[in-house]
């Protein structure tokens, strides 16, 4: 991979919030001013030493960073291929990497004088993280969740309510995550004065994708140092599951200029390659505009967006992050000989293991996970 291309990729987004051709801002006019305000506040916070110190302190003392990098020897042995390392984001407070971004945006919301946080959630992890940060900072919290997702993830609904959040059941459209995002946007457009929309994925209008990426960068920064310390070299390959893209870009970003490190994003292949039966946006979607950004979208030829389906029936985003519209995916495809892995093996996580871990004997690998390490493989 050409070094200068990687440098360009690492410099994204441009002033318009574009990652190459992807990203940008596609929202109703009412939201443009709040988004510009958010961008200014975020830029200012990056240069604000006090803000950064508070963010780092909470990541360490509240969330539990740094998380360990664990050499999974028995799993390595069992699979008989690459040396597998796990970046244990599941050990963070609330049980997922989501808390990194929730703390960052929560502090930003407080800095902007907002008193109310809203969020969308699918499986519930981002909702729990947001509810937790709202409780920590003394902000009100409303979480939008698809009716179907609420039934499937009842324990997380309970946790959010226990933390004082209001969980609103979304019954419109497909009653899943993409509709929860629509509903959160509708709330935001109505309550722009006192409310911050704490988006949990690397999607949405600029500056969300870059902001979420930056708040999750600790994952890759830590992992890179830890890997070098433990293995004495860089890993050959990074793998991460790809839903909304926050854990994958958090891991990948600090490795982008390491052109020898391959990156693989694993999408949920679901039941079949038919629209509505899977969540493989790069393998099965095409570029379009949804939820404020230009990226890969699962849609029909009329531009109507379809719900996605993961393996356990969990509906996920119909949309891939503009951050990832290009680089890691593109590089992964290049490394895999032009074949996107999810297309090659639809939806079978075990098959992914065998496909890209087993054959690469003697290679050092390392896997980042959002939640439960083994389930997410």
């Amino acid at each position, binding site marked *: 991979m050409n070094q200068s291309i990687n440098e360009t990729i690492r410099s994204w987004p441009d002033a318009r919030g574009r990652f190459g051709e992807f990203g*940008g801002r596609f929202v*109703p*006019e*009412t939201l443009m*001013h709040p988004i510009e305000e958010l961008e200014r506040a975020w830029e200012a916070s990056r240069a604000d030493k006090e803000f950064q110190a508070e963010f780092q302190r909470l990541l360490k003392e509240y969330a539990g960073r740094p998380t360990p990098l664990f050499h999974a020897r028995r799993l390595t042995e069992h699979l008989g291929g690459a040396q597998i390392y796990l970046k244990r984001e599941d050990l963070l407070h609330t049980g997922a990497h989501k808390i990194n971004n929730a703390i960052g945006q929560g502090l930003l919301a407080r800095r902007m004088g907002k008193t109310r946080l809203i969020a969308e959630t699918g499986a519930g992890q981002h909702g729990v993280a947001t509810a937790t940060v709202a409780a920590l900072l003394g902000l009100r919290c409303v979480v939008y969740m698809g009716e179907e997702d609420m039934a499937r993830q009842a324990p997380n609904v309970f946790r959010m309510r226990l933390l004082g959040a209001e969980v609103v059941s979304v019954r*419109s459209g497909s009653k899943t995550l993409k509709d929860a995002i629509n509903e959160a946007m509708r709330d935001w457009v109505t309550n722009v004065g006192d409310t911050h929309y704490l988006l949990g994925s690397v999607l949405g209008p600029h500056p969300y994708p870059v902001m979420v990426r930056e708040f999750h960068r600790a994952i890759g920064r830590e992992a890179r140092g830890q890997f070098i310390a433990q293995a004495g070299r860089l890993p050959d390959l990074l793998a991460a599951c790809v839903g909304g893209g926050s854990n994958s870009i958090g891991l990948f970003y600090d490795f982008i200029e390491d052109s020898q490190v391959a990156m693989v994003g694993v999408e949920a292949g679901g039941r079949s390659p038919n629209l509505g039966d899977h969540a493989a946006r790069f393998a099965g979607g095409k570029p*379009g505009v949804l939820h404020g950004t230009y990226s890969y979208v699962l*849609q029909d030829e009329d*531009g109507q*967006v379809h719900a996605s389906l993961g393996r356990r029936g969990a509906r996920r985003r119909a949309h891939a992050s503009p951050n990832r519209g290009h680089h890691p995916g593109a590089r992964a495809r290049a490394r895999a000989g032009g074949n996107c892995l999810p297309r090659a093996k639809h939806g079978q996580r075990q098959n992914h293991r065998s496909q890209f871990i087993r054959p690469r004997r003697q290679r050092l690998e390392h896997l980042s996970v959002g939640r439960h390490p083994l389930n997410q493989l």
Partner: protein
Amino acid sequence: MPTISKTRIDSRFRELAERKAKGLVIYLTAGDPTLEDTGKLLAAVNRGGADVIELGVPFSDPLADGPVIQRASERGLKSGASLARILERLPRWRQEMEAPVILFTYYNPVLQYGLERFARDAARAGAAGALVLDLTPEEAESYIAAMRAQSLDTVFLAAPTSTDERLERLAPLSTGFLYLISRPGTTGERNEISRELGPLIERARRHTELPLAVGFGVSNPEQVREVTKDADAAVVGSALVRAIEDRYAAGGPDAIEHFVRWLREGTGAA
């Protein structure tokens, strides 16, 4: 200031101005309840006295819309009202009406259809222009170029949250009229017109000579009268869509014609 073009929307507003009358813009969703009904409804809305009609293109993710138009959008999708089918039928629908029609849509259906193809087919179908709800001025360059090439109007929206800087950026891109969002929020009926509207109208006047049409939350003749005191036209959407929900099945197109006539009382025109 924009150059004064001579589109059908311009002449409609000029005509209103000459009579010192106010305009009524009516929104309805295509394919609600079926595509066949859309033809009848457009004719009824036209007979009722709409000056401009916004024809909504159903979208799977209408994030700027409240529950009423969301439901209409779902019905439209169910009845197969894709952009392609709407453009295919529009010439026939337009035979029985004179009010200019603007396509009111989210960006993705237009993007997937193709910007140039959309502009060409919309012009061929007799549309006067389009309003793309989630297309910001910052991202609209290619769309505007494609629309201008077909002499179609590009209506943009301004909101109470739009700063003077934003008004300066978006007002020159709008043609036909400038759509003012009366209050922060989604589309839908409200009991009162927001106090934020007055200052917005005043600021908008400083940035454009275009007619100003006010929408979001305008649902009865009193509110039409109230917003057209300072603005040039009122836009009624959700209330009309609700009338279709409530009255069309039993009352047919006549019920909708009467509803529009009733709204029109607010413009002071007979």
